[in-house]
């Protein structure tokens, strides 16, 4: 019994000594490393140090951005949903619907040019479809497409149009934004039925809608875009009105 104990003690002492030696080597390595940092001017000249520091910089940047993305993505998503909600409530009046528009989406459109696959937010009142809102890209702007949010009632009468994104000239073409002028409200209440195709134009071209001083291209593009959005709704009206609640 005591014999075994003796051997076990010897064994553990050897292990301990081994560990101490390892610790000592580590300490020496660390000391040497620290000494190198005392002579930073010399260290900075070394190619391996430069490689490591560049790698460390990029790694730190990636880590920081990764963490920041994780920390902010939830909040950003929430804000974007709020933005979407507020745009939707501007183009579809609250009296028109009693459902949650963000959870009532259907995708229509064939994906062919002029008939893009579009997510349509369907307004419902007491369970039956009462209108729809969807994003529509108006081509022919002064610099790139103009993204619109278009809201219509069941019969295709415009409830509201808002510009969601555009790259028009500040101070000239940006009067299409609701925050900068009332121009966009001119569409409210219009439909393909009460405004004939030759009136879906700016006044300069013989139509019904004002242009801006110094900027005709931008309003022309928006007017044409809204008209094509209404045609899109007319084409897919049955499909949209029959779509299942909460689908998409």
């Amino acid at each position, binding site marked *: 019994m005591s014999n075994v104990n003796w051997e076990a003690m010897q064994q553990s002492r050897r292990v301990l000594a081994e560990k101490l030696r390892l610790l000592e080597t580590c300490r020496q390595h660390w000391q040497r490393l620290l000494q190198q940092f005392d002579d930073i001017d010399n260290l*900075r000249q070394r190619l391996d140090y430069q490689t490591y*520091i560049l790698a460390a910089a990029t790694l730190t940047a990636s880590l920081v951005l990764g963490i*920041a993305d994780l*920390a*902010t993505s939830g909040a950003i998503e929430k804000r974007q949903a709020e933005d979407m909600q507020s745009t939707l409530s501007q183009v579809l009046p609250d009296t028109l619907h009693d459902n949650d528009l963000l959870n009532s989406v259907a995708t229509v459109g064939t994906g062919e040019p002029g008939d893009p696959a579009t997510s349509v937010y369907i307004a419902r009142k007491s369970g039956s479809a009462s209108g729809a809102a969807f994003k529509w890209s108006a081509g022919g702007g002064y610099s790139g497409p103009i993204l619109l949010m278009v809201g219509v009632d069941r019969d295709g009468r415009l409830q509201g149009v808002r510009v969601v994104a555009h790259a028009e000239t*500040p*101070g*000239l073409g940006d009067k299409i934004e609701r925050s*900068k002028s009332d121009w966009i409200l001119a569409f409210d209440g219009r439909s393909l039925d009460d405004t004939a195709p030759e009136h879906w134009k700016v006044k300069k071209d013989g139509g019904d809608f004002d242009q801006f*001083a110094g900027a005709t291209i931008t309003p022309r593009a928006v007017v044409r875009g809204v008209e094509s959005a209404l045609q899109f709704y007319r084409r897919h009206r049955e499909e949209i009105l029959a779509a299942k609640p909460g689908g998409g």
Partner: protein
Amino acid sequence: MNSEFRKISYDGLWGNNIVFSQSIGLCPLLAVTGTATNGLGMGLATTSVMVVCSALVSYTRVLIPPEIRIPIFVVLIAMIVTLVDLVMNAWLHEMHKVLGLFIPLIVTNCAILGRVESFASRQPVREAALDGLMMGLGFTLALVLLGAAREILGAGTLFANATLLLGESFAWLETVWIAPYRGFLLMALPPGGFLMLGFLLAGKKILDRKLAARAQSAQAGDAALLNET
């Protein structure tokens, strides 16, 4: 110490102004100065990024070997700009909607790299941060001046839509200078930016020369007085 801080401030705001003296950072300058409000927004966003970048680079300057400093600075600046973009989008969303357009443009501003490279990488943290702040404010001054000049000539207004950027309490900033005004398209478009910048640069040269002449004549006057007595 104090006089050094004063010199850094003077250089940043006027003497060595990023736009008027160094003529760098012109890409974002010409891109956003259609209105004074846009200029102000871009200037403030750039200033905040500049302060953080300068301080960070100055703090880590002993570690960074000169051979690879440029890629490290670029990574750091890109990181901070992206960070500002993300944080603003998440927690200052209203401001991000207005400034969001400008923030990615800050990466293209070589003035930040320029200050980091020529000042922050050789100076203590406090001086570097102050230099970033003052250079940024000088840049803001240039942006607002150019934006204001273009806006008044181009649209007849000054600080239009400032409330979107600063809030309702700044409604007094929005003024109409020429009404009714048909607008002067050239000034609102990019060529107007180049033209107006040229006039402003010439104006600064004339002002500087006048100031120098006055200082010289004052000196000469003193010398003459000294000779007489």
